[in-house]
């Protein structure tokens, strides 16, 4: 599994975290190409459904990012994100997915380096966990099926 390259779906709010990710670029801070960023207006828009859909679809990790608490462009969207992410997390166990595959972080527009650090660190964490167990299971089932036929 040394060359395992995890795929991470990252949700970034338009006002803080997406801008922070842009700043990492402007500053040419290098980080692994493991994330696929989906821009939303607010971290409070990230429905637990999105998180579960990503993990069901085979994402190895989901990163939700928003403005620091108190700085939300929509006043309290990030507080709603805390609630929504925790709701999704409580369902991960039922799916047999490790809760460490889901992470919520606050990244301001000024924190380009922080965005890069979090992606680097989260990539390592997910890499240690290995591939999304749902995907691994599917592959396993297919192989067994092949033996049977």
């Amino acid at each position: 599994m040394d060359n395992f390259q995890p795929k991470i779906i990252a949700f970034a709010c338009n006002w803080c975290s997406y801008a922070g990710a842009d700043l990492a670029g402007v500053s040419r801070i290098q980080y692994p190409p493991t994330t696929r960023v989906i821009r939303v207006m607010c971290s409070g828009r990230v429905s637990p459904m999105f998180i579960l859909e990503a993990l069901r679809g085979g994402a190895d990790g989901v990163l939700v990012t928003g403005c620091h608490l108190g700085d939300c462009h929509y006043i309290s969207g990030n507080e709603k994100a805390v609630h929504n992410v925790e709701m999704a997390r409580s369902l991960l166990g039922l799916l047999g997915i490790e809760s460490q595959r889901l992470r919520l972080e606050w990244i301001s527009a000024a924190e380009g380096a922080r965005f890069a650090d979090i992606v680097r660190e989260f990539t390592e964490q997910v890499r240690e966990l290995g591939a999304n167990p749902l995907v691994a299971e599917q592959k396993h089932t297919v192989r067994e099926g092949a033996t049977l036929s």
Partner: protein
Amino acid sequence: MFPSILQSQKQVPRERSTERHSEPVRIGVFVCHCGHNIAGYLDVPALVESARTLPHVVFAHDSLFTCSDAGLAEIRTAIAEHNLNRVVVASCTPRTHEPLFQTACQEGGLNRYLFEFVNIRDQCSWVHMNEGERATQKARDLIRMGVAKAALLEPLEEVELAVQPAAAVIGGGMSGMTAALNLARRGFAVTLLEREPELGGILRHLNTLYPTGAKASELVDRQIAKVRDDPRIEVLISAEVREVRGSIGNYELVVHSKQFGMDLPVQAGVIIIATGAEELKPVGTYGYGSDPRVITQQELEGLLSENSSPLPSANRSAVPAGADAPSPHPTVVMIQCVGARDETHSYCGRTCCLTAMKNAMLLKERNPETEVHVLYRDIEVHGTHFEDYYAKARELGVIFSRYTPEEPPQVVADRVIVYDELLGMRLGIPYDLLVLSTPMVPRPGARQLAQMFKVPVDEYGFFLEAHVKLRPLDFATDGIYLCGSAHWPAHLDEAISQAYGAAARAATILSKEQIRASGVVAHVDEYLCRGCERCADVCEFGAIEFIELERKASPFNLPIQPANRKVAQVNPVMCKGCGACAVVCPTCAMQAAHFSSEQVTAMIQAALGG
């Protein structure tokens, strides 16, 4: 580039009808080299090739700089030649270039929301400079995600609103008056509301102003005269806001005027909140409220301005046995940070250090024999003027002694006992006057006002700006601005600068005949809505109302009386498009336009499908 200027000068053709279900989706993808910035690290020709194979993509093309005139012309031409009805640009970041490409789409005859941005520079080529194929693979995924979303984009409507070219300024202190004058001189009508029977705010209670020593009353009277003389400013004194309706461009206030004994309607396109702050009265601390020798800095200012001596004649009680003989001169002790930087008010009052220095120097000037002790935790002076001011106070012989919050000064038997941290000694200072420096606190009623306007306050009740750095004078609610000490304790020069700033921000709205509200708002599917009101509960902007929907009689002549149904309705002007309502809607009746569940889910699936 200045997209907003370009937009205003260009002729925009009539939009084609491009509903998703009215015609097949035809997507054009434009991949930008950004010179070497993208093409130097990603395989752009390969990205174009893979884009061409994606569903609904009928055209894919790369250009050196898509944002150049030639690049934008290519977009317009391709829309016409290939009958495109969705456009995807893979280049830099929507934060800087989205309006430019949206305008190009509009000029090509498309609704500006039929455009999707894919960021392959700031979030790909620039951060994966040594990744080679893996970076190109990421860009390929990002484009696939953008195309998947683009296929589901819908044209959105921007509501146009007429702007009432008038402002309401709440608070007739220095910052409110300055903002009102500034707007009036730009030619706008202003209603200036003051709760007290007189204009002037906190400056009425001050003696002189640091660092110039100018008389506060002269400055404030001059400003009041200017306000009173301006025919465009209507001043309502003894007036309080009772109700607020409407939104940016068209606010309606109901103002109760004690002067006229009635409620008055006030119409305004914008609102400036300048309600100021007031001094904390530390009742019960150090004998304040019971001992007449214990006063606050503001009360000292009152005594100094009346030109009466604030110092009672030598009136000391007997010196306790063994204590040092008290100074033969009148002694004033000032204690800093009373009620500030503690558990209740953890912030720094900002103005109190300078106020103490100002008053200490005045006392010294009046009678150089007076001993003035300032007991402080930290001296907060800054900038070019104020540091000098501090030096001057020390030169005049004001004695500064530092105490720690662990061992605050105590008053015991007519003496202030303080452990001077720098001397390492406990001092007992007999006093004739004990002056407490307390922080400014929000005016009573600030929280109620905030709730009325649906704007936030911080934990202390000071009004909270939309963004601490990017939008320091705006509220998150459009068309409402703030200035002065309602925001946090401000020096006078800061309050005035903020007033100019808030007036300028307000004028950006008032100077337009019409404003356009963003099309990125929530939409309700009335058929699915069951009126549970969860969406309204999470909406911070009060944008959701409920209406009774008349249920039509059944066409089948069933013996059931149709009941009216309550459904949500979104005010597209008040909605900010955050999408929180869409998350809590149990029936998916509420959808966040441009970030719908369908669109985001399509992006997730596209990201993982490659």
